[in-house]
Structures are given as structure tokens and as C-alpha cells.
């Protein structure tokens, strides 16, 4: 991050890219506002960017439990119709979505 000193930690192009990755659409005003706000927040985070953390283990989680397995016994699942009744669109016991590939029919 050599441009950190310039204070432009993230620019509009990067924000637009991140928004696209997160499946969000921003208009021009939002893009400008969010770029400014995200840059402020990342500037604040510069304090940890500057820390020497060589040799410090990362901590992704406070509980050191791994691979919790339940007994391999069938239980009652949620009722399919009840779950599908909450979906925006369902058909034949499945979620219905618009075409995933190619042009719309």
C-alpha cells in the first residue's frame, strides 16, 4: 500500500468493483459517498496496518473446538412446504429462479 500516505486507500474504481462482487448496484452519488466513507474507515485501520505482527498467530475464532459432529442418526428436518412457503417463488417442491445462464427466454 505505497499510496497510503496520499490518503487515498480506496478509490471509486475499487469500490465499484467491490460492489459488483457483492452484487450491489450503486448510482454515481452513492459511489462517491461510499468511496469517501470507506476511505475514512480504512484510514483509521492504518494503525494496525503499521503493526509488526510477525510471529503472532491469527485468531479467527474465540472457541477452540474443531469438527463438532453429531451422532449419525436421522432427525426430523424442517417441513419442505413450510420452508418453500417463505420463498419468493417455488414450483414442484423447489425454489424457482430466473434463468441462470444465457439470455432470458
Amino acid at each position, binding site marked *: 500500500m505505497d499510496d497510503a500516505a496520499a490518503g487515498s486507500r480506496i478509490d471509486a474504481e475499487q469500490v465499484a468493483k467491490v460492489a459488483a462482487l457483492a*452484487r450491489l448496484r450503486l448510482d454515481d452519488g452513492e459511489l462517491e459517498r461510499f468511496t469517501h466513507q*470507506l476511505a475514512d474507515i480504512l484510514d483509521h*485501520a492504518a494503525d494496525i496496518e503499521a*503493526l509488526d505482527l510477525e510471529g503472532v498467530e491469527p485468531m479467527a475464532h*474465540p*472457541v477452540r473446538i474443531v469438527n463438532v459432529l453429531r451422532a449419525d442418526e436421522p432427525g426430523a428436518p424442517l417441513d419442505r412446504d413450510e420452508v418453500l412457503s*417463505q420463498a*419468493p417463488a417455488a414450483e414442484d417442491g423447489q*425454489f424457482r429462479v430466473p434463468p441462470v445462464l444465457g439470455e432470458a427466454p
Partner: protein
Amino acid sequence: MSVERALSGSPLPSAVETAAAVRAGHRSAVEVLGERLERITADEDRVHAFNLVTAERARAAAESVDARVAAGEDPGPLAGVPVAVKDNLCTQGVATTCSSRILAGWEPPYDATVVDRLQRAGAVVVGKTNLDEFAMGSSTEHSATGPTRNPHDLSRVPGGSSGGSAAAVAAGFAPIALGSDTGGSIRQPAALCGVVGVKPTYGLVSRLGLVAFGSSLDQVGPFAATVADAAVVCEVVGGHDPGDSTSLPGAFPSVVEHLDDGVDGLRVGLVTEMLGDGIAGDVAARVRAAAEALAAAGATVEEVSVPAVAYGLSAYYLVAPAEASSNLARYDGVRYGVRVDAPTAGEMMEASRTAGFGDEVKRRIMLGTYALSAGYYDAFYGKALRVRTLIRADFDAAYERFDVLVSPTSPTTAFAFGDKTADPLQMYLNDVCTIPTNLAGHPAASVPFGVGDDGLPVGVQVMAPALGEVAMFRTAAVLEASAGAS
């Protein structure tokens, strides 16, 4: 030293008193409920603590509690006690919105474990409380249903994100409420609304049915008017849940039986880093008064430095958004909630998320996506996880010398609407004292301790090492008893 509330009405019985009266047959659950619904009818228009009041269901639940008492059964330790539930906890067949447009109309097919346990203990759910959308915020202003108002001063925020639950207890709508705390979302609103709020040790309370925000940080806990009520709720909702793979084995520590133990001989550390820059003078003065009260009650009190907490805010605002960006990927217009139609699935997902999420949620999703993206992962997310290790190590060092640590809960008393919404970083700074415990996975409570220069409540935070709930509750109980006296 209580504040003249902006609302009418004298204090109603506590949860402990209510359950005792209902179990003994001296009061009916229906009558208890009626008393609270009356308060809601009188004041909810001005407070907006609730997204939904479930009066009819509550009446049916109260009637069933009364029927059990009449049949000679014991409905449980919260018999007939009304409870308000944060609207990011699943309630079967009852709308659960997270105060987001994207979940409008969604009715979960199951109850969160904590809701189920409350009901099995005889509690009566009166409604779903307002929050910052998906629990992201410190003022409840980021809610799609509009802000909640602080019952002590209706021109001020109640704090957040569990502002609705805090306000519901402060306004007397219910003696107890559930919230969730990812970076202070129980403790900070508790402080601003003058009630007790507890974030238990990570893993002590099930997250099954809590709509996920930051999965390595989220923890459910109680709001209450008294420390004893909060302790009872912890014991009821806490303990192992096989449905949550991060749930710790065993029951919640027995805190109720130690509430009267006092603090004689307890070692209390006053965190230096949380009393300096950025902490309002009147708030710091109350915290020092609290430390004196603990010393007067027999505790040894000293200042202690926990240096790495200074990096907590930065680490949190990388870790929590990173986890959120992943957790909120599920809102795609396919399985639940709102869909905005478009010709292809990809366009439909983008249109649904763009219309369904508010600005603060979008900010955090983008921040997290950025922190996790190629080229930045090591500089941001990777470093933040290492800072987390430092914070826990510094806490561990402090807890070799101290049983509990004390600080302000929030740097200021309740602020005015609109004060911080334009500048997200200013809003985030509200969480500077509460965030480190979430990063470490430790427990902490906020206890009201008098008022600031503006006459509004000040909360004192009591932190403890993992599973240190007994010492935390003992300290909280002494602070509660001495708050009126100093």
C-alpha cells in the same frame, strides 16, 4: 439518583418478583401481561421500541401459564414474565425482519433456541424489538422501520444495535428483553437507556436461530431492570445446545446463587486505555466513582494497562464486516424475503440486494468484501486476526492480576438523532470500550451508575475472563446496590 423519565408510570415488579407471585398463585400471568400491554399502549407510539407487538399470542401464552399453575404445575423460573425479543431472533410463525426491507414478511419455520428456552421457563413473548438493520449500528437509526427513541429523553437515541430491547425495558414495556451483542450491541444501549445489559462468554448462549452478523463475535444476552433478573435470564437461556457447533459444553455458570457474595477481596482493574482520550469527563468521573464504591465494599482497585485494546476498533471493523459480507450473501432473493424481478438470476440477485439493504449494511458488506479480496487480505483481514490474538493476550495478562476489569460502557451518554449518521467512523467510535471483549470472546456487563452532566444515564462496564461470569455478576450486583448511594 434516578432520572426523571420522559414517560409516565412508576416502576413495575421485577421478573424475579413477578415469577414468584405467579408461581405462588398470587398473581395471574394474564394480569401481569395486561399491566405491561397498558404501558405499551400508552407510550409505544412515542418510543417505537417494537417492530411487532404480539399481544394475542402473548395472551394465549399467559393463559396457558395460568392454567398450569391452576393444575398444580410449576411453569418455571420465568412463570408469566413478559419478555421482549430482538427482531433478529427467529420466532416460529412470527415475522422476523432484522429491521431490514429484505426480510419483510419472512416468518421463520422454527424458534431460536433462546426463545424456546424462555418459553419453556414460562416467559411470555410480548413482541419483536427494533434494531439497527441486521444489528449493524450503535443508535438504532439504521432501521428500515424508523428509529427507536430513548425513554429518558425522546430527542436522543437509545443506542444500538439492540436499541428497541433496551428501550422496551427502560420504558417498562417488559421487565426483561433479549438482545445480541457483536461489538457492544447489548451493553451500549443498556448504558444509554439506564438498564442492565449482559454479553456472556462466547459459546455460553446458543446462536441457533440468531440471524448471523459476525459469527465469531455474536452472542445473545439479556436486558433487565435489575442485575438479579439478568442473572436468571442467563441461566435460563444459556448452556450447551447441540444445534450450535460453537456452543460450549455444560450449563451456564450458577450466577444467581452468588449475587449476594459481595466483592470483599475481589481484585478490580480500572482499564487505563478506556479512561483517556475520547471518553467524556462526566462519564469517566462516574466510572471512578464506581471504582471507589467497589473499594469501599472491600475490593482492591488498581489501574491496569491493556495496551492492545487501542487497536480493537480497527481490528473489529475489518473482522466483523468480513464475516458479515459472507453471512449476508444468503440474501439473494431466492429462499426467503424480498425479490425484485429481473430477466436473469444474477440481475435478480443484484436488484433484490440493492433494493433490500440499507446504506449501513451496504457499507459493511463492501468493506468486508474489500478486506477479504485478493491483494488486501494479508494487509487487512490477516492483520486484524493477529491483532485479535494480541488483545486476548493482553487481557489474559491483566486477568492474572485481576478478577474483573472496569471501564465506561460508552464514551458518552445518549446523543441526539442525526449526530453521527453522516459520519460512519464517528458512529463506530461509540463501540471503542465494548469491542475488545467481543474480539477476545470474553463476558462483559453494563450496569447503570448514576447520570452524566446532562442528567442522562451512565453505564459502567464490568469485564471478566472467559467463563468469569460469577465474578462479573458479583461486581455488577455491588455496583447496582451502591449506584443509588453515591
